[in-house]
């Protein structure tokens, strides 16, 4: 992965993020805003991203005592039935903690930029450290998914990436996460598709 700091001149930096290499091509699919101090880490140009465990892109918030890593994944599907339900992702995130108290978990519905899903916030023991996870599991609204299911051949690969489920997951030391929580929420909620989703006339 190659990392580079965001543009120092802007209060907010606008990033475009490419999808996965489904047909050996990676198209810019998503757009997101970050504060200028965040460091962006992209996969190397020759690295294949067909493995969905690899993030599309990572952002790092550094301070003298540690770092917060924010990873963006997507999971493309061919039919609406293949989509992973957001609650399944949330359950998976819960299980990643070594120990976590139910009182330190909150799951709230989220809907923005045409996506709907869940926002997970949990603090607990993760690999021996008191860690907070802020994570979003997002699926396109069904009507949008249907609109993106019918595409001409030249648009099929792009539309497949556009209708993919998305996760945004920030992991870091609990005290540090508390400090940057607002920025991370703003960052996640600025996430959107670059191309507009077509609508029925």
């Amino acid at each position, binding site marked *: 992965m190659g990392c580079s700091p965001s543009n120092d001149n802007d209060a907010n930096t606008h990033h475009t993020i490419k999808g996965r290499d489904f047909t050996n091509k990676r198209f810019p699919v998503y757009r997101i805003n970050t504060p200028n101090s965040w460091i962006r880490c992209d996969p190397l140009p020759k690295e294949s991203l067909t493995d969905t465990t690899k993030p599309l892109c990572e952002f790092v918030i550094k301070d003298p005592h540690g770092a917060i890593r924010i990873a963006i994944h997507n999971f493309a599907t061919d039919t609406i039935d293949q989509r992973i339900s957001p609650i399944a992702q949330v359950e998976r995130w819960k299980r990643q903690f070594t120990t976590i108290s139910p009182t330190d978990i909150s799951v709230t519905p989220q*809907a923005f930029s045409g*996506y*709907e899903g869940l926002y997970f916030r949990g603090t607990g023991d993760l690999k021996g450290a008191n860690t907070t996870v802020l994570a979003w599991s997002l699926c396109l*609204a069904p009507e*949008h998914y249907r*609109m993106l299911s019918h595409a001409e051949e030249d648009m099929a690969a792009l539309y497949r990436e556009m209708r993919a489920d998305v996760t945004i997951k920030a992991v870091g030391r609990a005290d540090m996460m508390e400090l940057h929580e607002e920025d991370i929420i703003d960052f996640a909620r600025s996430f959107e598709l670059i191309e507009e989703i077509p609508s029925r*006339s």
Partner: protein
Amino acid sequence: MNLLKHTYHFLGGVYFAMILIASVTLFVIAGTFLESSSQSHLYAAAYTYDSPLFALLLWGFFINILFAATRRWPFRWKHAPFLITHLGLLMVLGGVLLKHYFGHQGTMLLTEGSGSHVIRLANTFAINVQKRGEKVSTSHPLKRNFSGRYDPLIARRDDGLVLQLAEITPHVSEHLATWAKGPVAVIDGLRPMPMVDVIDQEELTLAGRARFGSEDAPVWDLFALRTDHTEAVQKQVKKLARKTPALAIIENSDHDVSLFAVGPYGDVWTQHIGKGGPESLIAYDDGFSGYAVKAELPFDTTPAHRASREQVIANKIKSQLEKARDEGVALATPLEIFKRACEKAQVDFPDMLTTYLVRWNATGSWLYPESTPLPAELHTVFANMTWEDIDPHVATGCQWALVLFDKVGEALESDDAPLEVLRKARWPLLASLERENSMIDPEGKNPSVILELLTQQMLASAAMLPAQDSRLAPPQQHAAMLSVLMRAYGIHMSTIANDDSAPSDPLVLETRVMPVHEVLSPSNKIEDNKPRVVLHAAKDTVGKAMALAYDRSGTGLKWPVLHGEYLLRFQPDVIDIPYHVRLRQARQINYANSNQAYSYESDLVVTEMKSGMTRETTISMNNVYETWDGYRFYLSSISPSDESTAKKIVVVVNRDPAKYWLTYPGAVVLTCGIVWLFCRRKKNDDE
């Protein structure tokens, strides 16, 4: 010449101005009363502000002011304030007239993530036509002629489609007919069945029989019934379906339809389609081949032998028990008692448990009836059953529960309202039963919750009841007592079967949906009316009449015509505007620590299509976005207000083409003229 001069002076004179002012006053009074009495702005507007007479009055004002100014000819310097005032008035009136003829107001519906440059013009009628293979649809407005009637010819398109208006009805109600279509019930692939009014709930008329799936699949009894006592009829169908699976299509007088099925093993399944229509539809070929509603019944259509079914459940029970043993999980009390009895009788516990559950389920009773004979092996098991190892009150509770259900069980199981039965029987713990039931089943739709709570109550209060000796009980009584305990623990064939995975080859039924209209008398509140048009669509030698109800939002279903070559929808007229608007996010902002809305906001990206220039903006309740050429974007509504799904907003788009170069400058000129007039008069007075 004299007449012309007189007319000119009259039109520019004070008398004409007074007539105009008086007429407008009458219009305003009439408009106020009409709107107040009908509660309808549209109704009032149709007779006042939107009438051609009112437009004529505006023109009258324009002419009066123009002639009043030109009457001063030749102009002198002293006329300047007067002329400027009149020029201002003419500019304002000109702006109003231009807006009246060339401005528009409509709504734009946007969903987060998508955009549009199309607005729906309020209170207009049009037929939206989409041709097969084309993504874009065309709007053909219904136009009125001089007499105020709609032109019969709506459109004659280049592709040969001719649309004609045959009839327009001011108000209809519309519902989607699904399984019940007027006099018949229809399941695709079967003959239509006549709908029968239920007169006697005890005797339901069979509409037919059908076998779904292969030849050795069970035959189903089919009912097509019309009644307002849906739940009672469903109960009766369930009773009749003890031996044969049954499927009933039940429609009530509100056209709500229930599809009610009792499977081969007594499992009940139901689908309800209410006023809002089905939750989802199948669109064949994107709607060009019509729409259907589907029901996926969780009953296998492949040969569902009882033995194989029981084997599935037995395997499931066995695997669960083995898993519990491996993991060292303790069995629930009733299972533990039964297991010990099996061990004493030296029979296989899972096999016997399955046999017992299947026999019990076949009786259809809440508890295992003592009168039902037991097969030899089960007889041996229950002969070896002892209750001494567990809390003695449990056996007492079970025995008293049998006494209770022996007295009122039949009434409880057959009545729609078991609480009423208990009230009549003066059940002493009714209050707590009601309280718990209201928490578990707030709508009171599941009578078995009451039965389960009642069973649990009997066991909970066993310590206060006189003890009975269970050792002398015959095996049948042990079987019945165990069923009490199992019910208290929620163990029954139906609960185990319901937990089972979905059948591999479920029974899938489909039926076409069609709109049904009922003509109603129109309300004075025009906004509440739903007009309907009957159209004749023709192309080449093919013609077809079809009725369409008005879709105010223009987002509903389009209906196929001419063998699916076109889709049509009756909706407001639409126009393209030169701005493309994309909705990024919409949100409701609440007061701190409350769900009360403080503000609604929407982030938009507005692109001027001609120049490609893009601007990001946020509109909110009191924050309108306005373009340089007179388009205004108001946020009208957001739904839903929470974050449960992608939000939709309605943006009101208003265009006043002359606002910046005529109306607003006119107001400034008018103000200057009035001020000058005032100052000059004051000066004259002083002199």
